[in-house]
């Protein structure tokens, strides 16, 4: 049979339980905006009933601690998707900068400035104009000035691309220290979690570890492997170990061939990181694939235009009746070394200063002849750049670049949508919902009030019991 005393003990236990549940709610509200915090719910446990004389009496409630509302699969999916989205975001930003160098010419005068497509046309058109009057100084000057514009715009674009590339290189290198501090933090959290909570969710520590992993996922592509005692190993997506439970390996950088390469324990893992994902993957893809491909297209254009125009000009007769020789060539553009395509865009420039040296006349012809000017104008319609005319080549170049950027845009939009969706699912489960907390507060408050009332009434009842009906002795 239960006693008033047991009722006292039972209800004071309820008050304790309500208090600790209230403190969990208060903690939830306090951490509502803490990044990575996972909402906690109190664990209520009914106390073991007491058997007295065959009757079973409840023995109240205990609050045994908080449980984090977490779905590890969802968290891992979110991290994975985040790696892809970060990679495409970083790549997109880089590509946006690249395509800004090739803004389409809308046809207006101002939009022509810096447009390589218009420059190519203007340059070859200047030879068409020269056909009409091959000895005209103004028309000859026009050839040199359009050549200067073309060479200037191509070499400027190449210089900008190179500086964008080294900017990306620095950003990529800057990621390393963040990665290293995160992997170190994760390895330390691993140790704490393994020692304090080897078999169950480690609550706040787990929150911190997940938050660090989520930060790491934004930076590089990783795989997580759960080990015994709630430990965790992290590798790159291609399997190089970054964190092994309590220890972490430092990512180091070094210059290889003019760019930063990334090493893990002495092994160069740059190419693995490039395809791995995360910001670093995006930076490296832009640095090692996208920008070099744009640069090499420009190099092809610059090399083939320079060498073909130079070769023709060198075989004609200039206004002074001179034909170029090996020792004294009549070159309009800086002549690239044979076959040295790489870097020709950056080094493209006009070396001719005297417009009289433009060889409009054919070999052995009088200076009034225009055969060579016709031949040079015809280069515009000849397949001199990788089997295409210069304009066709530039046109397919901008289309390809535009398609690449637009492809990455679409990819990024889809991945961001997927991240948002997963984030929403995860937030729905794990984020602190203030309305829920308000409702929990009210419930607990009521329950605490009720328990207090019961306590007060038990007190009165106890007084009655002690006084045995005499109301005056104990109140």
């Amino acid at each position, binding site marked *: 049979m239960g006693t008033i005393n047991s009722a006292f003990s039972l209800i004071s236990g309820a008050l304790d339980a309500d208090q600790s549940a209230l403190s969990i709610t208060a903690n939830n509200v306090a951490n509502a905006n803490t990044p990575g915090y996972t909402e906690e719910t109190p664990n209520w446990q009914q106390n073991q009933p007491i058997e007295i004389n065959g009757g079973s009496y409840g023995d109240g409630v205990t609050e045994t601690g908080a449980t984090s509302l977490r779905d590890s699969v969802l968290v891992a999916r979110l991290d994975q998707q985040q790696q892809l989205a970060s990679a495409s975001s970083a790549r997109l930003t880089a590509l*946006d900068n690249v395509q800004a160098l090739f803004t*389409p010419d*809308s046809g207006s005068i101002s939009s022509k400035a810096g447009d390589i497509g218009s420059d190519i046309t203007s340059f070859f058109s200047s030879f068409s104009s020269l056909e009409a009057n091959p*000895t005209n100084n103004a028309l000859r000057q026009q050839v040199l000035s359009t050549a200067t514009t073309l060479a200037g715009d191509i070499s400027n674009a190449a210089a900008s691309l190179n500086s964008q590339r080294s900017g990306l290189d620095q950003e990529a290198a800057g990621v390393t220290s963040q990665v290293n501090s995160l992997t170190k933090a994760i390895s330390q959290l691993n140790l704490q979690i393994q020692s304090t909570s080897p078999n169950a969710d480690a609550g706040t520590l787990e929150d911190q570890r997940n938050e660090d992993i989520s930060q790491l996922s934004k930076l590089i592509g990783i795989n997580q492997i759960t080990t015994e005692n709630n430990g965790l190993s992290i590798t790159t997506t291609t399997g190089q170990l970054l964190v092994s439970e309590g220890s972490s390996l430092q990512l180091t950088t070094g210059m290889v061939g003019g760019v930063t390469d990334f090493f893990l324990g002495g092994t160069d893992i740059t190419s693995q990181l490039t395809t791995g994902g995360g910001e670093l993957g995006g930076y490296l893809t832009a640095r090692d694939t996208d920008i070099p491909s744009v640069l090499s297209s420009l190099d092809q254009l610059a090399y083939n235009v320079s060498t073909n125009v130079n070769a023709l000009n060198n075989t004609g007769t200039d206004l002074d009746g001179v034909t170029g020789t090996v020792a004294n060539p009549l070159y309009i553009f800086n002549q690239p070394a044979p076959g040295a395509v790489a870097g020709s865009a950056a080094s493209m420039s006009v070396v001719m200063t005297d417009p009289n040296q433009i060889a409009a006349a054919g070999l052995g012809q*009088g200076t*009034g002849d225009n055969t060579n000017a016709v031949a040079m104008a*015809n280069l515009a319609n000849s397949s001199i750049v990788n089997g295409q005319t210069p304009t066709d080549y530039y046109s397919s170049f901008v*289309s390809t670049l535009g398609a690449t*950027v637009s492809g990455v845009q679409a990819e990024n939009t889809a991945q961001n949508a997927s991240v948002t969706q997963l984030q929403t699912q995860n937030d729905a489960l794990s984020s602190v919902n203030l309305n829920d907390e*308000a409702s929990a507060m009210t419930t607990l408050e009521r329950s605490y009030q009720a328990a207090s009332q019961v306590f007060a009434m038990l007190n009165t009842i106890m007084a009655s019991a002690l006084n045995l009906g005499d109301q005056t002795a104990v109140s």
Partner: protein
Amino acid sequence: MRVDPNYISNLVSSLDQSQANEQQLTAELSSGVSITSLSQNPVASGENVLLLNQIQQDDTFTQSSSLVTGQLQVADSTLGSVVSQLTQAISLATSANNGTMNSSDVQSIGNQISGILNEVQSLANTNYQGQYIFAGGQTSTTPFTTSTATSPAVTTYQGDEDVNYLHTPNGQKIQLNVPGDQIFSASGSNSVFGALNNLVADYSSGKVNTAQAVTDTEALGTALNYVSQQRVTIDNSITQLTAASDAVTSDQTQLTSAQTNLMQADVAQVATQLSLSETQRTALEDVIAQLDSTSNSLFSKLPI
């Protein structure tokens, strides 16, 4: 069912997107250009490069054609003058050949024809913007010089046989010049200078060898016809040039309109999109304002 308590942040990102959209549309409206970066429409960007290339080629041809039209017209009118000079020489020679003139009259006709010879030579040495137009490719050398060391005097051609062509954007070749020797000192009886020099020699002494003079006069007539034939080449070029220039101009108009359609913003459409986007943004802002106010939290309803 649990919901994402941070849904407002999703709304805010929608708001950002809507604002970015408005910014893009406003930029299109203010610049009048619908494609401001390659990725907006890669295919159109590539097409645009080709169209602009053709438009500019057409434009260059139009400019060149007006430049060479001037030169061809100078050549044409020069040959016109040559024809009238030669006609006059023939009529002078014919009157000298009828045997009624005394020797001083014949000499005077010889002097007049000599004058015509000089005039024709200076016409043959015509230059346009400092370049001799009947010199083939040797446009900086005086093409015709006469040596009086012998009788009859000899006029020699210093130019060459070079012919320049102007190429239209669609590949048509238009002849820009006729080498001077083809017009003035062609072989056989077609040589203008040969015939004129012979006539001058015929009449210089005052005594006319009528048979020789008649032959030489006939030769001049043949040469005159030959000059007229060569003039037709120049006239043809002018006609071709005008036709090509017209064709190119109409081609350019079409290309420009295609390029405009491709690149220019459709103002009505953009304005409609902008208005839709504005409506959406206002709605989003209202929703956020409604949801974001603290009075919507259950906490605000709790008794304190």
